[in-house]
């Protein structure tokens, strides 16, 4: 296993529980898995099985009770919150079910947001935003507000924002959960494109069996364990 210039995600004996009232509710117990660079993993499982929690843990926005998570050799648990925040802006992009775009910013400005944290100049940022909007097919809509876009278009802005700062890993939490079939397929094709052409590692939580066809493999999560794994044929 190479250390440098790779972003292999490793979970080793990860335990996580939430406090609910007086009792502790375990979500994961000694969970171990590896996701290689350039993988496209779909995660399925019943509601409340911990799918979102896994994404949050890998993205460093939630913390584990025991075990270790490392990404490309960097152990997340060793970083304090501000280091983790900085790390996240460089390595991970999040895509949400309800897009979570800034309602008063145009599509282009939403995509530019993560670039504000980079050392790019204003004109470099504009150029990057243009390129990315072209990739997601929204050049014409650059100046539109989210409210002026369809759900599918908003999600494409969401994906554009997630990849703007060029992170290796994309964490997508039910990215098509709020979309009709046709828009959903377009989004899934876009993710697949990012995976195959740009070699992004993608972890995608989904409720929808047919979505898993776009991933390289599917993990089924239940009661804090991966109970099954399916390999898909590459499309």
């Amino acid at each position: 296993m190479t250390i440098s210039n790779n972003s292999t995600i490793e979970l080793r004996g990860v335990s996580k529980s939430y406090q609910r009232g007086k009792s502790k509710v375990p979500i994961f117990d000694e969970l171990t898995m590896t996701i290689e660079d350039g993988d496209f993993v779909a995660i399925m499982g019943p509601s409340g099985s911990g799918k979102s929690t896994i994404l949050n843990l890998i993205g460093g926005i939630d913390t584990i009770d025991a075990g270790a998570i490392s990404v490309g050799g960097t152990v997340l648990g060793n970083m304090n919150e501000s280091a983790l925040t900085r790390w996240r802006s460089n390595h991970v992009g999040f895509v949400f079910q309800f897009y979570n775009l800034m309602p008063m910013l145009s599509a282009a400005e939403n995509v530019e947001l993560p670039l504000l944290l980079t050392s790019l100049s204003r004109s470099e940022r504009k150029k990057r935003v243009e390129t990315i909007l072209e990739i997601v097919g929204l050049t014409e809509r650059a100046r539109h507000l989210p409210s002026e876009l369809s759900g599918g278009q908003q999600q494409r802005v969401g994906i554009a924002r997630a990849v703007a700062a060029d992170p290796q890993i994309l964490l997508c939490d039910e990215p098509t959960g709020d979309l009709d079939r046709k828009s959903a397929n377009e989004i899934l094709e876009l993710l697949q494109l990012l995976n195959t052409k740009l070699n992004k590692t993608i972890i995608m939580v989904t409720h929808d069996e047919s979505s898993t066809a776009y991933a390289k493999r599917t993990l089924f999560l239940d009661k804090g364990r991966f109970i099954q794994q399916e390999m898909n044929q590459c499309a």
Partner: protein
Amino acid sequence: MRVGSTMLVRQNLTRKLSRSILLVICIGIAFFVFGVLSSFRAGFEGSEANSERLVVASKIGGNETLPLRYFQQLGGMDEIAEVTHVTRLRAHTAGNERNIIGANAVDAQSYASVYADTYDFNAEIMQAFQADRTATLVGRQLAEREGWAVGDRVNLTSFVHMTQDASRDWSFVIAGLLDGAEPTVDTNFLIVRYDYFNAALLRNQDQVNLFGIKPAVGTDINVLAETIDMTFANSTAQTRTQSETAFMSAFLEQFADVALIVKLIVSVSFGTILLIVANTMIFAIRERTLEIGVLKVLGFSGSSIMRIILTETLVLFAAGLALGFALTAAVIPVLGDALSSVVPDLYLTPKVVATSVGLAVVFAVLTGFLPAIKALRLPVATALNHR
């Protein structure tokens, strides 16, 4: 790390534009109210009353007179460095009974020396004043208010004093404009020459309203006040001698309760308005919990998010403050004219401005900081589930 946060500040201020505008108006009114009140107080405190000077008036009341001959008697006392006398014309501009003008007949030389610290009696205006018996020196504020210039004729009608042709009309020529030694000094009055006024009077000649006294260096003014009143205790016209400050505050006392009530009302409304603003800001920021979570996911640090929110509240308060100052600046001259007989001078002092700016910064930081710190402390995962 460079954070181009302007676009985030802008989106927050414009997302509910009418709310932002209402907040700015609220803050503006609060500071308007504060500005006027503070100027009102500064007007009371900043009047030209001087605790080192004495005022001798009739023991009976403000409108009673004292004989002019006391002038010589007072002038002969060792403890008195300078003495002058003042007689109120009690007049309005000809044809307009409501436009009351503060007009005093004075002895030019002694008046200028007693009040040398308070007004700027330069050689030029003194010469002009003395060159013409019908001359008047008009305070600059009064001249500006009435639109008068040097050389103009001022026609006044007295409520009480008649000239020898049994008319109550008096006419003077403006010989010069009188400035205060400092900007807070009220110059909303004019002075005319007592020698001319007295000679032209039909009756009540050789009577004055007040004597102004500058005690000799090292004199105990309380002892001197007693000595003066003792001196005239057995005369027909008894005196009441007070420090100028005491005299002024006795005069203002009738308004003091009103001032206190005004102050209370104003403080309460200022406080209430700012509480409303703070409350609205707290809600506006709480509304954004999810967005703050998203920004953190994108990699914005807590401090950069805090900076964005504080900038936003600072912009709101700065706009409100500007509005408040504009209103205050617009209203004070009008109010000052209307209240010139009550409050000697209404004036937006640098101190009031500085206090307002300070308060605005404190409130902006508090109303932004408290809800922001709460939103930032929330774990990102929790914030993301907030909608």
